[in-house]
């Protein structure tokens, strides 16, 4: 049975704005249980944004920690509690961009990974003993950075308002629908997936 703090965060995430107000109010008052439940639920979102910028473990961890430490100090200033997930993803994005800039790197948006990097089957595939899942992972890793970022957000936070998704990706809201279709088409039609899928059925 989930504890009260987890239950509160779960209700908030389901779109209960009164629950969001309670979450923020309790964190302001130093309620550690609610804070931990919030971190537990949204750590994947922040981590995933950092990964979407192709940050390595150490950098992704630093961005992740920065975002949560920032929230601790900014919690008094959150005016729209229900938009907290959007605040988290947007802050993560800003910190990723800052880090990349300071390292003199830039994110290449629309070119699929041509060499090395995440397109290569990596050690992560060791945890995917299912051929079909491994194929899907390879197809995903070969998508453009923008497609990967968008799909990660859609998968992790289906409830995230499109305005927040657009802000996190740094693109106009109107482009999201077409981009979503394009990215899913690419993922689906990837030779790898089709081959594995047809072989599997």
């Amino acid at each position, binding site marked *: 049975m989930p504890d009260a703090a987890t239950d509160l965060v779960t209700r908030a995430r389901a779109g209960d704005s009164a629950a969001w107000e309670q979450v923020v109010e309790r964190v302001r008052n130093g309620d550690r249980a609610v804070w931990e439940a919030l971190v537990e639920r949204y750590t994947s979102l922040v*981590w995933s944004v950092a990964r979407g910028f192709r940050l390595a473990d150490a950098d992704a961890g*630093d961005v992740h920690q*920065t975002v949560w430490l920032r929230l601790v100090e900014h919690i008094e200033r959150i005016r729209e509690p229900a938009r907290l997930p959007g605040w988290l993803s947007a802050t993560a994005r800003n910190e990723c961009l800052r880090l990349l800039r300071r390292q003199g790197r830039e994110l290449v948006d629309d070119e699929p990974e041509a060499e090395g990097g995440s397109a290569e089957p990596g050690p992560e595939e060791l945890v995917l003993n299912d051929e079909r899942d491994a194929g899907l992972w390879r197809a995903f890793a070969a998508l453009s950075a923008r497609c990967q970022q968008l799909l*990660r957000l859609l998968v992790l936070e289906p409830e995230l308002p499109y305005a927040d998704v657009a802000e996190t990706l740094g693109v106009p809201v109107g482009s999201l629908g077409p981009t979503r279709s394009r990215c899913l088409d690419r993922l689906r039609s990837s030779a790898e997936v089709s081959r594995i899928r047809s072989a599997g059925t």
Partner: protein
Amino acid sequence: MSDDDDLLADLARVLGRVDPPPDHVREAAAAAIELRAFDAELAELLDEAGDLADAGVRSADLAEPMVFEVGDVVVEVEVVGDELHLQVAPTAVTAVVVRAGSGSAEHTTDDLGRLSVPVPDERPIRFELDVGGRRVVTDWVVV
């Protein structure tokens, strides 16, 4: 549409298994609330980033300092090699604690509000200042 939903569900399963946040990352974030600075003014990081990028400035050309601001207190931080160069305004001798992860180090600026310190090993970092009796903390940043 349901084809899309199936595909997204498959992808959710795969991503959840391939690249979950490491435990130590999750635990560090859970502990972040302990570092809350009560009774301090928050000097927010001004977002130099988006604006300059939008203006077409390339990252390689940027050597701009990070700027934190609250009221009349401004803290500029520039990374120069393996040192951080701070400029605090109003200019006066100012006590500065550099907090990095679980550690911290105390420093004092010169009478022009300047301070050079080594870049800490741990990240992220923030600065905690005593500005004429006012307690000011900056946003956390990765340097």
